[in-house]
C-alpha cells in the first residue's frame, strides 16, 4: 500500500545528505570533543562547524549557540535558567495559553517553586494581542516566553513586535522556534529575541539534538550540572554525530528554504481549498499567516482519533487534537484557546507537509478524506438529518 506521510510537525525523516554527514562520527571519528588528542580535536572541530551553521541560519553569533538534547530541553533551560538566575529581580513570567507543553509544564512547575505566571489568551486565529502583552508586563516581570509558530494550527506570532515590547520594557524574551526554524526565515536580530529554542528532528535532522540560542550578556544559569560542557550551561558529553547532522540539516534548510516555502505553500493552499469543500468543515488558524506546511481542520459530528485511524488504514499519516487520542482525555489546549468548543476540537485533523510530498499525494488525500468523513458521519448521531 502507498504510504503518505503528512505529520511533519511531529517529526521528519533524516535527509540522506544529513545521514551521510553523520556517519563518520560513529565509529571513525568517535572522539570525545573534550579530549586533547587528535580524536578529540576532530570531534570538537566538527561541533564548532555545526555551531556555525546553526548560528548562520538564525543570524546569531556562533558563541551564542548552546547544544541540547532537543526542543524540550532547550525550553526547560531557557525558562528555568533565566527564572532562577534572575529571581532577585522578580518572579513574574509571561507566556501564552497556546505554548507547547515543553513550555506550559515548565511554567506550571515554576509556579510551584514560587514564581508567578501570566498565561496570555489568544484571538480566534491564535495571535497574541500586543496590547494585552504590554499591559501584562510588570516591574517584577523577568521573562516573556511566546512561541514563534504554533505546532498545531501553524499560526505565526508577531514576534518582531513582541520582541520590541520586551526590549522597550527591559524584559528578557524567549521564543520556542522549534516549528519555525528552517521552515521560515528566523533572524534573532530582527526579532529582538534573547533566547530561542531549536530542534533538529523537525528539519530533517536526527532526533535527540537541539540548541538554545542565548544572546550574549543574558543572565542565565544551568539546570544540568556536570563537567562544564557548553561553557558550563549544559554539561554532558556532546552528541557529536547528532550535532553534525543537526548542523547539516540547518545548512540544507537555509539553502532550500525559499524553494520549499513556495512549493509547500502552494500545496498547502491546494489541500486547504479542496478539503474545505467537505461540508461542516473549517480551517483552524489563520488562512495566510501560518506555517507553509501546516493545515489544521475541524470536521463536525465526528471524532479525530477515528478519523486518523481510518486515514492510517488508507496509508495516510496524520494527527489530531481530539481528547480521545490524548493521554489526558482533554481536547487540545490550543484549539480550545482559539475558541473551539470541546466537541469541535474533538473532530480536528492536522496535516503537515514536508519537502518530499507531491501534488499526486495530496490529490489522493483529497479523494480519500471526504469518503472517510462521510462514513464516520453515518455512524454519528449528529449527522444526516439536516442536509
Amino acid at each position, binding site marked *: 500500500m502507498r504510504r503518505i506521510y503528512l505529520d511533519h510537525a511531529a517529526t521528519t525523516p533524516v535527509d540522506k545528505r544529513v545521514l551521510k554527514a553523520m556517519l563518520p562520527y560513529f565509529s571513525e571519528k568517535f572522539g570525545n570533543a573534550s579530549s586533547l588528542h587528535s580524536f578529540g580535536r576532530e570531534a570538537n572541530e566538527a561541533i564548532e562547524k555545526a555551531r556555525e551553521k546553526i548560528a548562520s541560519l538564525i543570524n546569531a553569533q556562533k558563541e551564542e549557540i548552546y547544544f541540547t538534547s532537543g526542543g524540550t530541553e532547550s525550553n526547560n533551560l531557557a525558562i528555568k535558567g533565566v527564572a532562577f538566575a534572575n529571581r532577585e529581580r522578580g518572579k513574574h513570567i509571561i507566556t501564552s495559553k497556546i505554548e507547547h507543553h515543553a513550555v506550559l509544564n515548565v511554567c506550571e512547575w515554576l509556579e510551584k517553586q514560587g514564581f508567578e505566571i501570566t498565561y496570555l489568551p489568544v484571538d480566534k486565529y491564535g495571535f497574541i494581542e500586543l496590547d494585552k502583552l504590554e499591559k501584562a508586563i510588570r516591574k517584577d516581570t523577568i521573562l516573556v516566553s511566546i512561541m514563534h509558530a504554533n505546532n498545531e494550527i501553524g499560526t505565526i506570532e508577531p514576534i518582531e513586535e513582541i520582541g520590541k515590547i520586551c526590549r522597550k520594557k527591559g524584559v528578557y524574551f524567549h521564543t520556542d522556534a522549534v516549528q519555525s526554524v528552517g521552515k521560515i526565515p528566523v533572524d534573532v536580530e530582527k526579532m529582538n529575541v534573547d533566547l530561542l529554542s531549536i530542534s533538529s528532528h523537525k528539519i530533517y535532522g536526527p532526533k535527540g539534538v537541539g540548541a538554545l540560542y542565548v544572546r550574549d550578556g543574558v543572565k542565565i544559569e544551568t539546570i544540568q550540572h556536570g563537567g562544564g560542557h557548553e561553557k558550563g550551561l549544559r554539561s554532558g558529553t556532546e552528541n557529536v554525530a547528532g550535532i553534525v547532522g543537526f548542523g547539516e540539516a540547518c545548512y540544507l534548510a537555509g539553502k532550500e528554504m525559499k524553494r520549499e516555502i513556495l512549493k509547500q505553500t502552494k500545496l498547502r493552499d491546494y489541500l486547504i481549498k479542496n478539503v474545505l469543500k467537505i461540508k461542516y468543515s473549517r480551517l483552524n488558524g489563520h488562512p495566510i499567516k501560518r506555517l507553509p506546511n501546516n493545515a489544521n481542520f475541524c470536521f463536525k459530528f465526528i471524532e479525530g482519533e477515528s478519523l486518523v485511524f481510518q486515514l492510517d*488504514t488508507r496509508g495516510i499519516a496524520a494527527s489530531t487534537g481530539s*481528547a480521545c487520542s490524548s493521554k489526558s482525555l482533554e481536547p487540545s489546549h490550543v484549539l480550545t484557546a482559539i475558541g473551539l468548543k470541546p466537541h469541535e476540537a474533538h473532530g480536528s485533523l492536522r496535516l503537515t507537509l514536508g519537502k518530499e510530498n507531491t501534488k499526486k499525494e495530496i490529490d489522493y488525500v483529497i479523494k480519500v478524506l471526504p469518503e472517510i468523513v462521510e462514513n464516520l458521519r453515518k455512524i454519528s448521531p449528529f449527522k444526516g438529518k439536516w442536509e
Partner: protein
Amino acid sequence: MTELYPKEVIKHFKNPKNVGVIKNADGVGKVGNIVCGDVMWLYIKVKRDKGGEERISDVKFQTFGCIVAIAVSSMLTEIVKNKTIEEAIKITKEDILKRAGKLPPIKIHCSVLAADALHEAIYDYFKKNNRKIPEELEREHKRIKYDLEILTKRHKEYVALEKNILEK
C-alpha cells in the same frame, strides 16, 4: 495504529454492526460520556416471543466518538440482540469489556457509555409502557441524567442540534 487496540475492537470499528436508527423504536437510550465528551444513541425494538417473554428483536446505534467508543457500541448491539429484557438489564460494562479484550486503561470508560445506553433504552421502554422501573435502573438513570446534564452544559451546541433534529 491497529496494534494499539485488541483485534476485536479494530474489527468492529472498521465494520460496525447495526449502525443507524430504528424509526418506531420501543426504547431509546441517549447518553453522553462525561469524561471525554463521546455521545451514543441506542434504539431497541422489543417483541414478545412464543414463550411470552420480551425480547430485543432489533437494535441500532449511532455514536460520536473514538475508535473504542464506536467499536464497543457495535459489540453491545451484537451482545443484546435477541436477549430478553431481563437478561439485557443484567449486562454490565464488564461484559462489554470482556468482549472487547484488553483495552488501554484510559479507554475503559468508553465501555461505560455502551452499558449506560442500553440501560437507558430499557428505562425508556419501561417508561413508555407505564411499567414499574426496577430500583437499580432508576438509580442508574438518575446518575446518567446528571452526567448528561453536565455534558449538555458543556456542549450547548449539542442541544441545539438535537432540537433541530427532533423538530424535523
